[in-house]
């Protein structure tokens, strides 16, 4: 390919597009950073961290229970979950491997018996998942939501107490008249 034809076939950057892209990124990035920082601040709260872990565990348990509905290969993730339950007891560092910490080993293994009786048709992991959800995960998720509500209400209360100051400061940078929120 000659230099001339290469130049013709290669798309040439439109004048100003790099600048436009940079400007666009400049608008998007601060918003993305804001959200990340806000989430990091929320995750500093122990209750919110525990609630997020409970929500994640619920999703994994729901997935395993769904797969467990298929006889045969579907039971494998359920057995793995039970195996991890035993492994997790060896050390505090492996606690997170237990997907149903609020359910005893006896119940976890006992529920597998139903799989044998029903020729693998019964999704035994659903029993452990439901118990885990009711005993530990839903209360933890409720506590996390409560903590998030407290933080949001705290921010609103702080705004209401210092509304004139905060509106003035926002307007100084955003170059607009103070806009009181609906808070």
């Amino acid at each position, binding site marked *: 390919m000659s230099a001339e034809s290469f130049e013709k076939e290669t798309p040439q950057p439109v004048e100003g597009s790099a600048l436009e892209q940079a400007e666009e990124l400049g608008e998007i990035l601060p918003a993305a950073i*804001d959200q990340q920082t806000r989430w990091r601040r929320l995750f500093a709260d122990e209750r919110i961290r525990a609630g997020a872990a409970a929500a994640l565990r619920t999703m994994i348990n729901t997935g395993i229970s769904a797969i467990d509905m298929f006889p045969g290969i579907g039971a494998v993730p359920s057995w793995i979950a039970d195996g991890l339950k035993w492994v997790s007891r060896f050390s505090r560092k492996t606690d997170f491997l237990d997907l149903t910490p609020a359910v005893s080993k006896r119940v976890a293994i006992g529920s597998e018996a139903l799989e044998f009786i029903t020729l693998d048709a019964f999704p035994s992991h659903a029993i452990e998942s439901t118990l885990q959800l009711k005993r530990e995960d*839903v209360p933890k998720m409720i506590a996390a939501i409560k903590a998030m509500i407290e933080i949001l209400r705290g921010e609103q209360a702080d*705004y209401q107490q210092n509304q004139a100051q905060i509106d003035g*400061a926002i307007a100084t940078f955003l170059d607009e008249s103070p806009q009181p929120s609906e808070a």
Partner: protein
Amino acid sequence: MDKHSALKILIQHTYLFSPEVKSQLLNKLPELTTEEVQSLGNLLANEKKTALTKAPQRLASLEELQSQLKKKIALD
């Protein structure tokens, strides 16, 4: 309101930073250049405005979710 005072208010009332970070930023405030003040001020002002505007909607969603989860526990 001058920009340094405005930035000081935004740092004091932001929920993005921990109290330690806020304190460090407030101590560094006199050393910040005009560009740094403008940049940080824009970021915090935009964030505060968005947070306050969206707060009622976020609170309503969280309260709805909380009530659904409570119902789930009550039903079980």
